[in-house]
C-alpha cells in the first residue's frame, strides 16, 4: 500500500508540473506535446486507481486522438500565442484562488481516499454491480456490463453526442477548400 501511495504522489506531482508547463509556455507546439504527456500521465494514474478501461481510453483518445486534432489545428491556424495582459492575469489569479479555496474547504467533508467505509462503497449499487452482475449479465468485466447493459441508455446518449459533434465538425469544415479557392480567385 505504501509503495502504491508513493507512486500516487509522484504521478500527481508530475501532472501538476506538466500543467504548469502548459500554462507558462507560449509556443503552442510544445504545449500540444505536453498535453499529450499530461494525458499519458493521467492514464498511468488511472491504472493505479484500478480503472483499467478508463486508462486505455484516455491513452488512446486523450493522448492519441486529441493530440492529432491539436496538431491539425496548428497546421490550419497559428502556432504561437500573444503574451497575456497583466491585468487579465491578475483577475484570473484572484478568481482561481477564490474558487480553489472554496473547493479546498469543501474537501473537508469528503471521505478519505480509498476508505472502505466511504458512502460510494456502501451503496447497494456497488454490490449489485460487483456480485449480482455475474449472474445477470455474465460478463466478467463489470465496467462493460454496466456500460452496455445497466446504463445502456447513457451510452446511447454518448453515441448521439459524438454523432452530433461529428456532423457539426463536418458542416464547419466541409466548405473550406471551396472557400479558399474562391478567395484566391478573387485576389487574382
Amino acid at each position, binding site marked *: 500500500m505504501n509503495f502504491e501511495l508513493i507512486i500516487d*504522489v509522484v504521478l*500527481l506531482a508530475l*501532472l*501538476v508540473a506538466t*500543467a504548469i508547463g*502548459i500554462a507558462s509556455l507560449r509556443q*503552442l507546439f510544445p504545449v*500540444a506535446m505536453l498535453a499529450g504527456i*499530461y494525458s499519458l500521465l*493521467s492514464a498511468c*494514474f*488511472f491504472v493505479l*486507481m484500478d*480503472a*483499467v*478501461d*478508463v486508462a486505455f*481510453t*484516455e491513452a488512446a*483518445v*486523450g493522448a492519441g486522438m*486529441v493530440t492529432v*486534432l491539436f496538431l491539425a*489545428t*496548428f497546421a*490550419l*491556424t497559428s502556432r504561437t*500565442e*500573444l503574451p*497575456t495582459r497583466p491585468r487579465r492575469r491578475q*483577475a*484570473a*489569479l484572484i478568481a*482561481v*484562488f477564490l474558487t*480553489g479555496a472554496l*473547493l*479546498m474547504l469543501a*474537501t*473537508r467533508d469528503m471521505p*478519505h*481516499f*480509498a*476508505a472502505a467505509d*466511504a458512502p*460510494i*462503497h456502501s451503496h447497494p449499487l456497488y454490490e449489485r*454491480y460487483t456480485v449480482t452482475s*455475474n449472474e445477470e449479465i455474465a460478463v*466478467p468485466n463489470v*465496467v462493460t456490463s*454496466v456500460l452496455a447493459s445497466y*446504463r445502456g441508455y*447513457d451510452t446511447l446518449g454518448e453515441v448521439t*453526442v459524438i454523432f*452530433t459533434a461529428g456532423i*457539426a465538425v463536418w458542416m*464547419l*469544415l466541409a466548405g473550406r477548400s471551396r*472557400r479558399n479557392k474562391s478567395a484566391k480567385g478573387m485576389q487574382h
Partner: protein
Amino acid sequence: MLDAILGLFNYWIAIGLMMTGLYIVIAHTNLVKKIIGLNIFQTSVFILYISMGKIQGGTAPILAEGTLIYSNPLPHVLILTAIVVGVATTALGLALIVRIYEAYGSAEEDEIVNKDRRA
C-alpha cells in the same frame, strides 16, 4: 494529521489541476490554448472521480475467482463516457477555431474583438 493530509491529497491535487485549467481559460487569449486549458480542467475532474472509486486493497473490477474486493466500477463507467464526450467537444471547439481563423485571420480573442469593434 498526516492521515488527513494523505487521505485528502488526491482531491487537493485534483483541485489544483482544475484551477490551473481554469486559469488558462481565463488568462490566455489564444483560443487553442483555452481549449487545452479546458482539457486540463476536464482531466482533473476525471482524476477526482476515479480517486473516489478506489478502495483499500481492491483490484480492477473484473470478476475473477479468489478476489473479493473490487474498486467501484460506477465512476469508471461515468468517466469513460465523459472522456469520449470530451473528445467530441474538443473537436467541435477546434473546428470552430479553424473557421474563426479563416474569417478573422487570427485565433487571439483580443484581436477578434478589436476587428469586430472596428467593423
